[in-house]
Each structure stands twice: as C-alpha cells, then as structure tokens.
C-alpha cells in the first residue's frame, strides 16, 4: 500500500518545478499578463519536457502518462501561476480527441505546435444563448473559450455533441477577465463550418471532470504559493519591534490556511488516481475536489493577502496574480454550488 506520488512522479515534479522557477518568474508572468509577450516560449519549453503530450499515447508522440501525473504537473503550474494551455490543450482536448478517435491533431498537440482550445460553456450551463448546429454549420456564441491563441476549438453543445472548428473560420474576440495569466475569448459562429468529433455525451462529461480535477490541482498549487509567501513575509516584516509572524493573530491565520490546505493534497492526488485506477469514483471525486478546492482556495487567497497587509493589496508584490488565478478556477467549468449540485444528482439525492 502506497498513497502518494511514486519516485518517477516525484522526479518529474521536481524537474518541472525547477524549470518553472527559472523560466516563469514573476517578471515573465507580468509580461505575459500585460500582453507584452506571448506564452509561446514557455509552452515550447514545457512541450520539450513532454508536458504538452503528457496524456497523449506514445504512438502519437506523447508521454502516455496518467491523470495522477497530470494533476501533479497542474499543481506545480498553479504554484508558478504558469500561463499556457495545459488545461485546455494538454488535458481536456487531448483526452477528448484521443477517445473519440479523431486522433489526427494529437501529434501536433504533443509537440507543442498545435493548440486545441475548449468552448464548453454551453455544455456546463450557458448563461447566454446556446450554440446551434445545422448541416455541420454552427451558429450562435460561445463565451469563455480557453485559450485565445488556439489553432482550433472543441465546441461542446448543451446535448454533448462536440464539434471541432478551425480558428481561421472563426470570429473571435479576446475577453478580459480578472486572471490575465490565462487567455479567454468569445467565439462567434455564423454558419461556421464545423466537424463533428463525438456525440458521446459520456465522453464529454468525462473530459469535463478531468478538467475539474486539473483545476483543483492548479488551485492547490496557487494556494500553497500564497501560504508560503504569507509565512515568509510574516517572518520578514517587523512591527512593534517584532516579526509579525510572532504574533498569535498572524500565526493563527497561517495555521488555519495550512490546516485547510494540507488535506487537499491527498484529495487532489486521489482525484487524479481515480481516473487511472478507480473509475467508479472518478466523476464524483473530481467534482467534489474542484468545489472543495474552490472554497479552500478562496479562504487562502483572502487570508494570505491580509497577512501581507497593505502590500498584499498592491501590484508591487504581484500576489494578486495568484489571488485571481484561484478566482478564475472557481468559476470556470462550473461554480462550486453548481458542481456540488451535480454531485447531488450523481448520488441520486435530487433530480437534474
């Protein structure tokens, strides 16, 4: 019995964290977030390490690893507030394309040359008009598609049918969100040619749950960064001739963050593991993990900022990038309340 990351997974995690700490500095995040630079160099570097193809089969040039490996990587990326299409291209699109049999794009995705974004709003629960299809042409609008520089998008309709649309046929507008470390756009369809990838709603749901497990891991990493920063700042910052970290008021804030966050590590690992080895648990665990990490992440984001005092509120420290990243993970692909409702439905506690 061994619950945790294997030696291989720890080695991979270590090398990814080393790369991220040298290449994805706060300055690099700022440049990408402000639009001064694109995320392409970072994604190229990550692809060279095999991360763009992490779950893609070796036959298509990928590393063919599992979801536990993917959540470990996502945690490291959250810690670094790393830009790039890991959630969309490397996990969700890669899974959906691989299992729908539309495997042509996989090799380009694994090499980092081709990005496939996801437009799942309608499937998750759209707050605006739905996208409709007629004779392999899409009409309507899809909001909050990930990411804005993708070469193509997987558009999942409310009934689960999922189409692939090339970006060159698309009218797309960049949407400003709070989290500028990830790029989001609005897709406008007007008799836009689209290719049906799958009508298997179960596969699309499974893809969504995998995305949620990745988001939970990303929030775990981002919140861990904020906790580490809070502790470090409290040991450095002096008021009343003492490090503020020696005041119980501040220590207890840090202890509360750690107490809520630490069990999330095991939760997120299990959520990844369930997709690989315990399929019957996978859907509910991924949803629960996403909702729970959203709550814990929100608490840590607020509390860490408070420990930093006025500096936490400024742009100077840059802590807000993580604060916003946690907020982004909370809403995208289902708010905690909506996701918990889905779990209640799965358990038969209520109707749809």
């Amino acid at each position, binding site marked *: 019995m061994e*619950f945790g990351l294997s030696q291989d997974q720890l080695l991979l995690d270590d090398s990814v964290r080393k790369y991220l700490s040298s290449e994805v500095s706060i300055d690099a995040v700022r440049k990408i977030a402000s639009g001064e630079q694109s995320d392409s160099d970072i994604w190229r570097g990550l692809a060279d390490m095999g991360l763009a193809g992490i779950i893609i089969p070796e036959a298509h040039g990928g590393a063919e690893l599992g979801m536990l490996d993917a959540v470990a990587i996502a945690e490291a990326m959250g810690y670094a507030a790393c830009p790039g299409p890991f959630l969309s291209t490397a996990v969700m699109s890669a899974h959906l394309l691989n299992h729908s049999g539309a495997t042509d794009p996989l090799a380009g995705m694994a090499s980092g040359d081709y990005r496939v974004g996801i437009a799942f709003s309608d499937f998750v629960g759209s707050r605006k008009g739905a996208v409709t299809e007629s004779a392999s042409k899409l009409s309507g609008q899809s909001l909050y598609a990930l990411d804005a520089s993708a070469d193509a998008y997987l558009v999942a309709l409310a009934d689960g049918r999922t189409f692939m649309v090339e970006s060159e046929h698309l009218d797309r507008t960049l949407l400003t969100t709070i989290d500028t470390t990830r790029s989001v756009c609005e897709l406008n369809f007007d008799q836009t040619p689209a290719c049906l990838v799958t009508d298997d709603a179960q596969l699309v749901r499974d893809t969504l749950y995998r995305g949620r497990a990745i988001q939970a891991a990303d929030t775990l990493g981002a919140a861990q960064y904020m906790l580490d920063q809070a502790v470090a700042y409290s040991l450095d910052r002096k008021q009343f001739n003492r490090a503020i970290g020696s005041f119980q008021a501040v220590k207890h804030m840090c202890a509360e963050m*750690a107490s809520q966050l630490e069990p999330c590590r095991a939760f997120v690992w299990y959520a990844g593991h369930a997709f690989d080895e315990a399929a019957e648990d996978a859907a509910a665990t991924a949803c629960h993990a996403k909702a729970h990490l959203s709550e814990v992440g929100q608490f840590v984001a607020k509390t860490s900022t408070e420990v930093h005092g006025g500096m936490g509120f400024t742009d100077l420290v840059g802590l807000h990038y993580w604060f916003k990243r946690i907020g982004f993970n909370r809403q995208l692909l289902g708010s905690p309340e909506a996701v918990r409702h889905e779990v209640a439905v799965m358990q038969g506690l209520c109707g749809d």
Partner: protein
Amino acid sequence: MDLSYGSEYDAFREEVRSFIRENKDKQPQAGDGIKSQAMRDWQALLIENGYHSRTIPREYGGYGAEPDIIKSRIIAEEFGAERMHRGFNGQGVTMLTPVLLEMGTEEQKKAFVEPTIRAEMIWCQGYSEPGAGSDLASLTTKAELDGDEWVINGQKIWTSTAHHADWIFCLVRTEPDAPKHLGISFLLFRMDTPGIEIRPLVDMTGDANFNEVFFTDVRVPKHQIVGERGQGWQVANAILGHERGSLATPDAAMNRLNGVKRLMREESINGAAIIDNPVFRDRLLKLEGRVLAMQYNDMRLLSAKINRNQDVRLAGMIVKLIGTELRHEIECLGIDVMGEIGLSYGDNPHVRGRGSWQYQYMFYLGLIIGGGTSQIQKNIISERGLGMPKEPKVEPKKVEPKIAPKIPAAGAK
C-alpha cells in the same frame, strides 16, 4: 499509487470476518457497564484472538503480534462495517499502557499492563487543574517526600471516569524550585487511598462526563513513579501525542454525515422532504467534500506509517483541529435539518436518534476545547509545522518595594 493491501492480506480479512460472524452475539450490550462481566469476557476474547492489545507482548498479557499497520486497519474496517464493539479503550488502555511499555520499570509493566488491557483495572488521568489548562506545565498539585511516601495535596479537574477508576496516573509538582517543565513527576496511585474526594462535574450535555478530584494529604508509596523525579513532563507529552489524533476519525465523521443524509430523506416540512431543499443540500455536499479531504488525508497518514520516506508531519498535526470542528458542524446540520424537532432532548417523545444530534453537537464543542484547544493546536501547527516563532514570553513583573518619596522632614532646612 497503490491502494491495495495486497492479496497476502485476503486470508487475514477472511479470518476477521469469520470471527465476527461466530462471535457477534457475545459482544457487550448497551446496558453493560465498563466493570461488567460481559465487558471483561469480551475483552478477554478479543485479546485472545488478536483483536485488542494486538502488539502488546504476551508476557504482559497482550496478543504479542508484530506491528502490522495493514492488519490493524483491516480489523478496524471489518469491525466498523459490522458495528462490532471494539472492547474497552479507556485512558489506561490507550494512554497509560504505551507509556508504561516505553518508560516503565519491569515491575510496573508486570503489575499494571495486563489488568489494564483486560479492563480489570480502570484508570483516570490527573493532568489538568483549575489554574493549569492550556498552560498545563504550571500545575501546582504538590507531592512531598515523607520517608517512603509521597504526600499529595492539590486539585485536578476534567478527570473523566474518576468515579469508576481504580487507579489514577497523575502529574504532580515534586521540585518546586526547578523551572516549571522540569519540576513535575508522574505518579500512579489507587483512587481509594484516604484523602481523595471526587465531585462530579455536570457539563452542558446534562451528563457528568468529568469530575473534580481533590487531594488532601494523600499518601502514596515512593516507588509508584514512572520515570525519574522531575521527568513527568516528558512522560506526559508522550501520551498527549496518543490522545490528539484519536479524538476525530474521518470515517466516523462520514458515518455521521450519512446519518444526516438519512435524516434529510426522512424529515419533511409542509410535506416536502428536506433533501429536496437546495440550501440544505448544498450545506450537506459542502461538508461531504470536507470529510472526503480528511479521509484521503487519513489514507496518506496510513501510507506514511508503511512507507517511512513520506513526510506527513503537517498532515498529522491538523487532524485534531480540523476533525473536531468538522464533526461539530456535521452534528449542527443534523439539528438544523430537523428545525424545531431538532430542539428535542432527553425524554421528549419527538426526539430523533435518541437525542444524539444535540448531544454530539455539544460534546464535540467539548472536544474542540479539550485535549489541547483549537488555539493551542494553531500554535503547534504554526510553530512546529510552519516554522513560525513562539510568542515572546512575558517575564513575571518583579514587584519593586515602594520607595517613599523624598519629602523633606518637617522643620528640616
């Protein structure tokens, strides 16, 4: 990640199951007290088969098995699934026995371990005092040596089971001039020794779960000390470690949460089942997510006992804090879904679950405070888990003798 226990354990699990099938009828019933023959017989049966005191050496009355975390876990799982009585696990069994085995003399082990684990010798713990709670090391109950006997004077509080106990393990100050942590000794003595008075302490649940214990010139043989004079604090800390984790297991929390689910299906308001109310449902699911986090955390802790390279210090430190708070909230939801029915208590004919929801709601507030308050837990987590500094100590102010102001004496010039 490998969550299987391995096929070599299948036979063991089957063995436990067949024991349960064959002996289910022999377990103590609700009315059997801790001193009943039924309890003692059951305890003996469990030890004989290795389901209690499993790793305690045979020479001290245990089963004498090699420590095997997985086997212990399987026993817990199978007994839990069938709601089987786990035997008597008072403070003597869970807290004193490990300490005696580690720090006691050969004579003490021989004299105390076997009757303790067989529930023939019931113990209570004399630690807290009215003036020494979170600052336990400031305790003032004193023991002075008079010939071959300690003479004990002082008062203890929060002494659960004192009214049933045959013996007490007790912290007393023996070196009044030493620094507070170095002046304490760990004594064992009989509760029927002259000079001991027990007063029940009724708590908010309406029960007397605790007592106050008063000592007036209680005389105890000199050799009934564990460790050396002045070492009592180290001995006590070894036991507190055993106490903290066991107060809030996530599997028990999940059982209670499933109980709330059942209540929500059974209870209704204006003909609509509570489970159909989305507000209550969201509270339920939110708590379920938190319990799951603690269950997986528990698996990680179990794994670290087998795989020594895994670092789970922080993951272990938070269990008492999070577990007791979580349990309190689960019990609270159980009450809330019943509305005014949830107020029922005691002999009220409308009471649900024998009043357990209100009882546990209050009892877990007691556990949030007892065994190291939540605030003390946060100090421990921030200092030992996160490496933050201790709050600077405030030195007691020296009272300066008042100097009379210099006023020239009348008439002096």
